[in-house]
């Protein structure tokens, strides 16, 4: 870009907590959807997200993985305050929305890129107008917002002169997703939630967009929450990973620890289900059988016990809590990982 005057960006939400303060803390996040049955049917609920807790440190990339319907996208929408949550706290840099942080400020501090690159752009607006919309909402003048939009188009690797005045249907999926990223960045967020942002792209474009995300993270000092079902992609981009099953977190920890020594049988099954490029290590048996149970009235106790090869009677009784596996923040919610839980494969009680 060869502009003479500097491009103004919106002032990011102030860093109040310092480096030690996690950018995002989520405690007991819960969302249940009521299901309308027949007239006399009992009221039932889908437990889309059930008591999910985690935190995201500043500058970190946290991946969330899980099968379709495990509550990943619902979590994203809850974090964005796009739907009301039933319970739990969402703390952004030590501030709670509604108390020390207004919803409007949160919207600037946290942005989201959606999976469907076409549906997430208004077909009647040009790309420039779509990107400039957010800054204008936050009080930027039209001209400045458009200049910012063009600047950001350059940042995401699209030549502004060629793309600014185009409509979404005139460009390819990968280009549209770049536009969506630019739109998210237009509000100078510190946290960007990427909800399956690269899943719909073909492999080579996906790789380009992932590299772009890595570059942007460095340039703007971003923190990512990366939601995907693609384990390879999550491993590539994430520092830490969160494994979700039927609305619950079953395992979380640094990505290498989780990959090398998965603590939960579900994580093990997920990793085993990844196709290997080595023909000698081809997957002969399905690592996990059946579909996930209906999230309406999920199984009692550990929700995975219906499909778990190691399930024992105690698994159906009560939900295991996330328990630390090592000192690096690797946790799993499985009785086999809890010392003295009563499960035959559980490690012995430590006396220390």
């Amino acid at each position: 870009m060869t502009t003479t005057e500097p491009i103004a960006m919106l002032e990011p939400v102030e860093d109040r907590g310092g480096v030690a303060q996690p950018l995002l803390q989520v405690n007991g996040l819960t969302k249940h959807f009521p299901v309308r049955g027949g007239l006399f049917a009992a009221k039932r609920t889908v437990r889309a997200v059930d008591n999910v807790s985690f935190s995201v440190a500043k500058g970190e990339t946290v991946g969330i993985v899980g099968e379709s319907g495990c509550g990943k996208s619902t979590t994203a929408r809850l974090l964005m305050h796009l739907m009301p949550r039933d319970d739990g706290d969402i703390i952004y840099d030590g501030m709670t929305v509604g108390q020390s942080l207004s919803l409007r400020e949160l919207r600037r501090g946290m942005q989201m890129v959606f999976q469907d690159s076409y549906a997430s752009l208004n077909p009647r607006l040009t790309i420039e107008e779509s990107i400039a919309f957010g800054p204008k909402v936050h009080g930027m003048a039209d001209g400045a917002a458009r200049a910012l939009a063009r600047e950001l188009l350059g940042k995401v690797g699209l030549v502004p002169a060629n793309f600014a005045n185009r409509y979404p249907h005139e460009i390819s999926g990968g280009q549209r997703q770049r536009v969506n990223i630019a739109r998210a960045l237009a509000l100078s967020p510190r946290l960007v939630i990427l909800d399956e942002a690269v899943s719909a792209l073909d492999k080579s474009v996906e790789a380009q967009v992932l590299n772009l995300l890595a570059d942007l993270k460095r340039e703007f000092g971003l923190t990512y929450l990366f939601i995907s079902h693609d384990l390879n992609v999550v491993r590539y981009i994430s520092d830490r990973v969160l494994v979700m099953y039927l609305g619950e977190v079953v395992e979380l920890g640094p990505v290498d620890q989780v990959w090398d020594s998965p603590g939960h049988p579900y994580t093990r099954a997920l990793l085993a289900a990844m196709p290997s490029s080595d023909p000698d290590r081809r997957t002969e048996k399905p690592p996990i059988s059946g579909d996930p149970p209906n999230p309406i009235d999920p199984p009692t106790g550990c929700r995975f016990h219906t499909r778990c090869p190691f399930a024992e009677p105690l698994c159906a009784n009560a939900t295991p809590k996330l328990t630390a596996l090592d000192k690096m923040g690797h946790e799993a919610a499985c009785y086999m990982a809890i010392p003295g839980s009563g499960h035959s494969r559980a490690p012995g009680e430590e006396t220390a």
Partner: protein
Amino acid sequence: MSELPLSTTADAALQAAPATKARGYWATVGRRILRDKVSMACAIVLLLIFVSAILAPWLGLEDPYKGSMIRRLRHIGTSGYPLGTDELGRDMLARLIYGGRLSLVIGILPVILAFCIGTSLGIIAGYVGGKLNTAIMRTVDVFYAFPSVLLAIAISGALGAGILNSIVALTIVFVPQITRVAESVTTGVRNMDFVEAARASGAGPLTIMRVHILGNVLGAIFVYATSLISVSMILAAGLSFLGLGTKPPEPEWGLMLNTLRTAIYVNPWVAALPGAMIFAVSICFNLLSDGLRSAMDIRN
């Protein structure tokens, strides 16, 4: 899998398809409709009728109110009276052209009014949803439950005869229909990701409705409203026919059809002329709205 070999931004250069000239959505629609022969023919016919109605006093026509007992119900093609005369000996050509002024107004004005009211109600009901949606839509359904002809007659009858009252009556008839269309289109658009993204950027409901909803629903509602113009003209003609709209001796197509009814055995061709005008305008509006619909479906 630690490094992906593809460069990040170097691929930007190969995206550089030739820069297209910035062309707005409506400009593209306009260009497409100009190429549609049927729509253009209809547009020309409508334009002729409109222009002649507006310029009626300056076209050198006979006085549309001046009758003569000795030259009643002349046939089409009589010298001096190219379209014959009506049952009171008034020049049909003049009355048809002057009649267009009133007929077009009571055909189009209610639709425009209903378009504004119905679109606002429908978008609000569709976007806000919940209890407000129920309140608006169930109220609208009450009106929708009546056949439109019956409703128009009932409201006109209650308000009393007159042009203004029939415009009001017709507006009330069309508001529910347009509201329903607007609401259903809006609910379709509301759940799309770009509306979510707009909410996520902190925009208020009014801004979202104006910037993101309106532009995406207006087209569909507009096409539907255009098709209502013909219905409105026919209903207006019906009201006048029943004596609830225009009063004689005012020239208006529906009223003329009514009064010429008695002459249908004597001079059927002349008696059918006002009906032919209503038919022509209605069908032109219908075909034009069809053309508009396909011109606005721009993705192909």
